[in-house]
């Protein structure tokens, strides 16, 4: 019911917006396309970060970079559809398979539209007032006003740029996957309509600001010099913490933990794992914004940290007296990918291997021991793996960055100071995400009721919410 109205509203709203858009664009056309800034990493990249006004003498994109970033963007989409859909979906019961895939798919689509309407400008638009600047940009680029095929975005190298549309698309996929990750803790019981409302609110008050803080020049963490190569804070800690809060507010699934809720298809979960790993190279290496040595470093780290985490998770299972499992392999792969995300271009290969091993061990403990003890129902362990793994990665990055450990840090690297910064960034993110999620979830509850009826939950959300079965003859 709710969905009905809301969707209608939404539909109308958009149509209105879109009608308005061109007008906007026209006015704005005058404005020179200001190159955006996206430096994910180190403070001294700020130089490159200064907006460069496009002009005759403006640098033009290298086609190698453009090609690389376009493919990287596509790879991140593959992480979501079908990657995450399969990874998460395989872990649910078959009666909720479609609901899980549909919630992820629809949230992703919605996030994309929100992104081009006002998300991009909030995160990477022109500078806002000094008061707002640390938290968001201004709204001058709503509807991508003024962006043309010739506009460019800065990279971390002076005078090296990429087409702004590519940068917009690349960052768009980050917003989409982050909100999708949150859903892992609430599937099998949250209403589809609630997911749509949550997506809208959560992106607006949690994701866009944090993305700005970490990656935009002037952003809070960015100015603090926090290390986050590909988004460990913005994406994983953010999603993980939000998932935990959402799961707690939503409550447990009927029958949890008494009833067996075995994954309906670990086969599909393994497929999703593979696609996530494959796509993650777009995510991590692509965050270099150039096809260069830094991307290459991020790539090899994304191989070895992951491989290490996968084997160490299975090792942890053995140490716990169990059999090494396929789900252990898959979970380790994801934990490793999560942990190496902030460290991708900020570590040497062996630092990355150790980071992956530690993340796997810690996440295993969180999922196998902490969760049962605390008793919350994080259906697919979005917090246990993305939240915890993200924190291990964020802090660990401060360690492996050290040249003494083979990292790319400067010779005079001050680990203590950097760790402090990392902790501050992590802490702030945790608080911000938690508060924002509480707000977003309660708004969704007010508008949609949030949770399906026990009958629907028992019969499965596929039939109850979507009128379909995942499998027939």
């Amino acid at each position: 019911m709710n969905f009905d109205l809301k969707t209608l509203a939404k539909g109308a709203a958009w149509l209105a917006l879109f009608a308005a858009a061109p007008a906007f664009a026209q006015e704005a056309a005058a404005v020179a396309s200001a190159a955006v800034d996206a430096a994910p990493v180190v403070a001294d990249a700020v130089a490159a970060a200064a907006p460069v006004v496009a002009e005759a003498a403006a640098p033009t994109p290298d086609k190698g970079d453009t090609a690389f970033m376009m493919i990287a963007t596509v790879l991140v989409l593959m992480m979501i559809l079908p990657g995450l859909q399969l990874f998460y979906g395989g872990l649910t019961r078959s009666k909720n398979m479609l609901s899980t895939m549909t919630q992820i798919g629809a949230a992703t689509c919605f996030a994309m539209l929100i992104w081009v309407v006002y998300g991009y400008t909030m995160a990477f638009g022109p500078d806002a007032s000094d008061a707002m600047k640390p938290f968001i940009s201004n709204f001058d680029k709503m509807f991508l006003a003024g962006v043309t095929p010739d506009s460019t975005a800065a990279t971390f190298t002076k005078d090296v740029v990429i087409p702004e549309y590519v940068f917009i698309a690349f960052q768009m996929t980050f917003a989409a996957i982050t909100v999708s990750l949150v859903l892992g803790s609430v599937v099998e019981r949250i209403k589809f309509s609630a997911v749509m409302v949550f997506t809208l609110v959560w992106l607006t008050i949690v994701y866009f600001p944090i993305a700005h803080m970490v990656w935009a020049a002037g952003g809070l963490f960015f100015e603090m010099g926090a290390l986050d190569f590909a988004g460990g804070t913005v994406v994983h800690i953010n999603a993980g913490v939000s998932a935990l809060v959402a799961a707690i507010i939503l409550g447990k699934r009927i029958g949890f933990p008494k009833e067996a809720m075995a994954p309906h298809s670990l086969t599909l979960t393994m497929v999703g794992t593979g696609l996530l790993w494959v796509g993650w190279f777009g995510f991590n290496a692509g965050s270099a914004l150039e096809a260069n040595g830094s991307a290459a470093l991020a790539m090899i780290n994304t191989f070895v940290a992951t491989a290490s985490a996968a084997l160490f998770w299975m090792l942890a299972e053995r140490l716990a007296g169990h059999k090494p499992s396929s789900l252990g392999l898959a979970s380790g792969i994801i934990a490793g990918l999560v942990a190496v995300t902030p460290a991708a271009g900020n570590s040497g290969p062996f630092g990355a291997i150790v980071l992956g091993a530690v993340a796997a061990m810690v996440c295993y403990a969180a999922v196998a021991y902490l969760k049962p003890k605390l008793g919350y129902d994080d259906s697919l362990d979005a917090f246990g793996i993305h939240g915890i793994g993200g924190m291990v990665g964020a802090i660990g990055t401060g360690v492996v960055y050290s040249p003494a450990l083979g990292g790319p840090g400067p010779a005079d690297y001050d680990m203590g100071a950097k760790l402090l910064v990392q902790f501050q960034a992590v802490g702030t993110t945790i608080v911000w995400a938690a508060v924002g999620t509480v707000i977003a979830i309660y708004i969704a509850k007010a508008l949609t009721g949030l949770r399906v009826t026990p009958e629907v939950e028992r019969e499965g959300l596929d039939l109850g919410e979507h009128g379909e079965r995942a499998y027939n003859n």
Partner: protein
Amino acid sequence: MKLVIAVIKPFKLDDVREALSAAGVQGMTVSEVKGFGRQKGQTEIYRGAEYTTHMVPKIKIEVVVEDGQAAQVVETIQQAAHTGSIGDGKIFVADIGQAVRIRTGETNETAL
């Protein structure tokens, strides 16, 4: 001996199994079936094509017990599987002339 056949709602299986164990039943055989009856199936729609499945997923339990035990077993199942809503299912009782435990060759009551 009696063969008690019960057709119940899937999510009630655990309750029934536990109730029967408590009632001293040592074994049973379970199968996934589809039921047709008063309870109507869900409507599914694929690209506008509407399908109302007349068949509802059910669980069939078959348990063979001594004649004396039958009444109580029926009773137990009826209570454990009861929700009061349409589609709760049925219990049928038939005679079994002989039972054999394959492992030991034991027969009848001792085979159960």
